[in-house]
Each structure stands twice: as C-alpha cells, then as structure tokens.
C-alpha cells in the first residue's frame, strides 16, 4: 500500500509546490472526499493552515476564502445585511453540522449538479481566484464549462460585487436534507420599480444550468407590478434527465411552476 | 378527576432509570465496552428446513488453527 502523507502547508508557495506532486489530493476541510479516494492519494494537502477562512467585504466587493465554511458565509451575510440571496440558498443546503465543515472552495470547485450555490453565484456574476497549474481570476461560468482544465489547480477565493438586488431562490427536493433536483434563481436590479437587469437561472438540468435569456429580455424595462409570468416564460423549455426526485418531464413542469412563483413573488415585492 | 395520591406509580411522573446516564454519555451500549482480542462467533445452520440430524462432524473445524471452541448440542448447556 502506498504510504499516505498529510501536509499542512503554511503559505501559498508551499501549497502550490505540493500541488504539483504525483498523487496530490487537496482537502479543504469539507465532506466530499470519500475514504476510497483518500486511500488512493499519496499526498493529502490540507488547506486549514492557509488562513483562507475569511468572509469580508472590501470596497464594495465580497471576498470569500476557499476554506470558509457555509455557516461562516451565512453568519457574515445575516449579520451584515439580513435577507440575502446566498443566505437563502445556503440555509437550504445539507444540515447545520455539515455546513460547519463544507467549504466554499470545495463546493465551488466541485460544483456538482445538485449544488445550491451554482445559481446564486452565476446570478451574482462571481469570479474565482485560482492558484496552481492555472493562476489568476476566472469567471465562475468559465470554471463550470471547463472543469477539467482546472485539475491541478485550487481555488483561493471567490469574489463578487455587493449589488443591491431583488432576488428569489428555491430548490426542489424530496426532503429537507435531500440533494436538490433543481434550483431556480431569479435576480433583478431594480430602479424605481423598473427592472434594469435580470438573471433567471435554472440549475440541475441537462445542460447543468440554463439562463433563460429570452425571459430576461422580456422582463427588462418592465415595472415590477406589470410582470406576467406566463408571457415571460412562454417558449422557455428547460430539459431535465430522469432523477430519483422525478422524471425529466415532471421536473420540467415543476421548474416552470417554481419560475412562475418566483416571478410572482418579485412582482408583488417592493 | 381520579385521585392518584394513594398510588405509587400510576399517575406519577417517573424518571427513566438510565435517562441521565444516557444523556451524559455513560457507556451503556454493547459497543461502548472495550474488548481486548475478542473471540468471533460464526453460526452454521442446517441447510435443510425439515430434517433429522443424524450426525455432526466437527473434526475439521476443531483441528483448524485459531478455532478456540466448537459448540454443538453435545457440549452446549440447555439450562
């Protein structure tokens, strides 16, 4: 059996050097790595000593370190601004003790199909700072479309501007702790009750995520109370694979219901 | 309303005897007790649902190294 070694690099130079080793496996502190996977690693690179567990706002930009856990994010945002899109999405993720270990870096790097973070981060136009094989800032959507290219690299930080948005988030799952079958994220930039910008995103579908750009165009320029969900969503057809939570056809129908609910909720909001 | 004052248990709030021990994590479950080098037991059942046992040959099992004991009806107490 290969000898497994744990490393706790104290700085980024050490970290990126270890990343290049054969059989390197990054452990940010979350719950995604199964025992079989750990056993097959030669070098386990623990990120806990890199001081990346911060959630802070600087000059109107939120910076979330890779090893910040989901509850850290909830606490920081609830304390600062109350109702936030990310808070709603995260509070519906896993359970309290799991959220004390699941890291933002790990969640974003893996971005599994059932991720609750995907929609909100896309709506917030998030960027990721990457170190290792690739270095620098990348749009989150680029990470999603080119995951394979990011192997051998690690996320150092997730960033997005602190915008004032009206938002709606919901997810569909069989039980409170079940994986999301899909999520619906709607974000509006609103000025004097008129929608200036819109993001309508469904995740968990066949294409992983879909932006309903036609619906977004229909919404922009309209007053909130003038929103008519049926017209806005006409022609929108998100396709889903069959999942434990329901058949593809069923999930497509339910996602339309959720989208309607979201648009109605935002239409009524002030 | 029935008067329960003459009863010892009926109508009374009785604390579960081991509740505090359980709430404070005292070792009470089988797996909580450490065993050093325990023996492991395996059961062999009759492969026939309705049959008469004519004989049981334990010689091969008994001569296998690391077998501490083979129990059958012959050497198992019934009371």
């Amino acid at each position, binding site marked *: 059996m290969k000898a497994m070694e744990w490393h706790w690099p104290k700085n980024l130079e050490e970290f990126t050097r270890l990343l290049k080793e054969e059989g390197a496996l990054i452990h940010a502190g979350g719950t995604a790595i199964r*025992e079989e996977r750990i056993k097959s690693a030669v070098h386990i690179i623990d990120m806990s000593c890199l001081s990346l567990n911060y959630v802070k706002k600087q000059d109107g930009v939120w910076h979330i370190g890779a090893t910040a856990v989901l509850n850290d994010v909830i606490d920081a945002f609830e304390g600062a601004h109350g109702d936030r899109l990310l808070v709603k999405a995260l509070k519906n993720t896993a359970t309290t*003790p799991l959220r004390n*270990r699941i890291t933002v870096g790990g969640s974003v790097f893996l971005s599994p199909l059932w991720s609750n973070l995907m929609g909100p981060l896309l709506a917030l136009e998030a960027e990721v700072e990457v170190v290792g094989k690739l270095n620098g800032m990348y749009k989150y959507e680029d990470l999603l479309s080119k995951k394979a290219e990011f192997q051998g690299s690690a996320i150092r930080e997730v960033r997005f501007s602190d915008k004032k948005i009206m938002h709606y988030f919901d997810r569909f799952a069989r039980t409170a702790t079940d994986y999301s079958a899909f999520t619906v994220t709607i974000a509006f930039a609103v000025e004097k009750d008129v929608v200036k910008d819109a993001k309508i995103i469904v995740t968990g579908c066949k294409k992983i995520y879909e932006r309903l750009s036609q619906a977004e165009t229909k919404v922009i320029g309209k007053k909130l109370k003038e929103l008519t969900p049926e017209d806005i969503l006409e022609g929108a057809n998100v396709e889903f694979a069959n999942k434990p939570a329901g058949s593809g056809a069923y999930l497509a129908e339910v996602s339309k219901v959720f989208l309607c609910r979201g648009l109605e909720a935002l239409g009524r909001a002030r | 309303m029935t008067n329960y004052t003459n009863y010892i248990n009926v109508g009374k709030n009785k604390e*579960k005897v081991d509740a505090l021990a359980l*709430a*404070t994590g005292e070792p009470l479950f089988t797996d909580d007790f450490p065993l050093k080098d325990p023996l492991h037991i395996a059961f062999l059942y009759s492969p026939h649902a309705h049959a008469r046992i004519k004989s049981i040959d334990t010689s091969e099992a008994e001569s296998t190294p690391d077998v501490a004991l083979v129990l059958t009806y012959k050497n198992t107490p019934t009371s």
Partner: protein
Amino acid sequence: MKANFKINGKTFEFEFPPHAKLLDVLRENGFTEVKCGCREGFCGACSVLLDGKLVNSCMIYAASAKDREITTVKKIGTLHEPHPIQEAFVEAGAVQCGYCTPGMVLATYTLLERNPNPTDEEIKEALDGNFCRCTGYVKIIDAVKLAAEKVKEND
C-alpha cells in the same frame, strides 16, 4: 501517523492510519460517548464540537482535526455533575433509547450559546443534523425549551 488532540481540555497523542475518521479515533481511545450511527453525516449521533462548532465526527478525517479542540458531551456534564441541558432532557421525557441524546445535547448547547431564547423553528433548524428514531422529536423540542429556561435561571 501520530497527532495531538485537545479533548475536553486535556491533550492526547493518538496513533492512527492517515485515512482514519475522527469518530473511530475517538471511540477507539475510550471516548465512547461519541456514538456511531450512520457514518454518512446524517444522523448526528457522532456529533462533537470542533473548536466550539457542532460537527459530525464521522465525516472528519482525524488528521485534519489535529491540534484542534474537541468537546464531547462529557465536557458539557457528567452523571455526577450534569448540565441543566442534560437534566432538561431527562425531565422532559426526551430520552428513550438514548443513542441520539449525546448529539442532541451538544446541538442544544451550541444553539443556546448563540441564541438563549430560540423559537420552535430555530430549535428545529439547529437540531436538523440530529435524528431520533424513538421519540418523534416533540419531547426533544420541549427539552430544549426547558433547557433554555434552566440555563437562564442558572445565570
């Protein structure tokens, strides 16, 4: 590999394989108050506090918890010096088989630390990582509310 852990205020050095889970390292070294339920991070029987935060020890590699502070239910209170939370669980009838109870007590402890007057909803959210197959949860929620009162009285 070897590593140090500060458990319930005392430092210990344990030896374990690199892939060992914190739950197993704790139980094999005598901390049997940490229970093994599902090994999947759902039931919460294995709950401990890691640097004061409620976590599922079955989902943590022991190595990644090295040099950290771990609190088990025995630090909260013992048979001879029980914590008001543990007394509340007993009084409210919230203990049946008792397997989930250490985890519930720890979850209640961290909840009341942050929120001394939780609503029913807040209690359910804080204990959403602790499953019980015996009680049906109603008495557990009563126990948490009773514990909140007792803790306030104590202060």
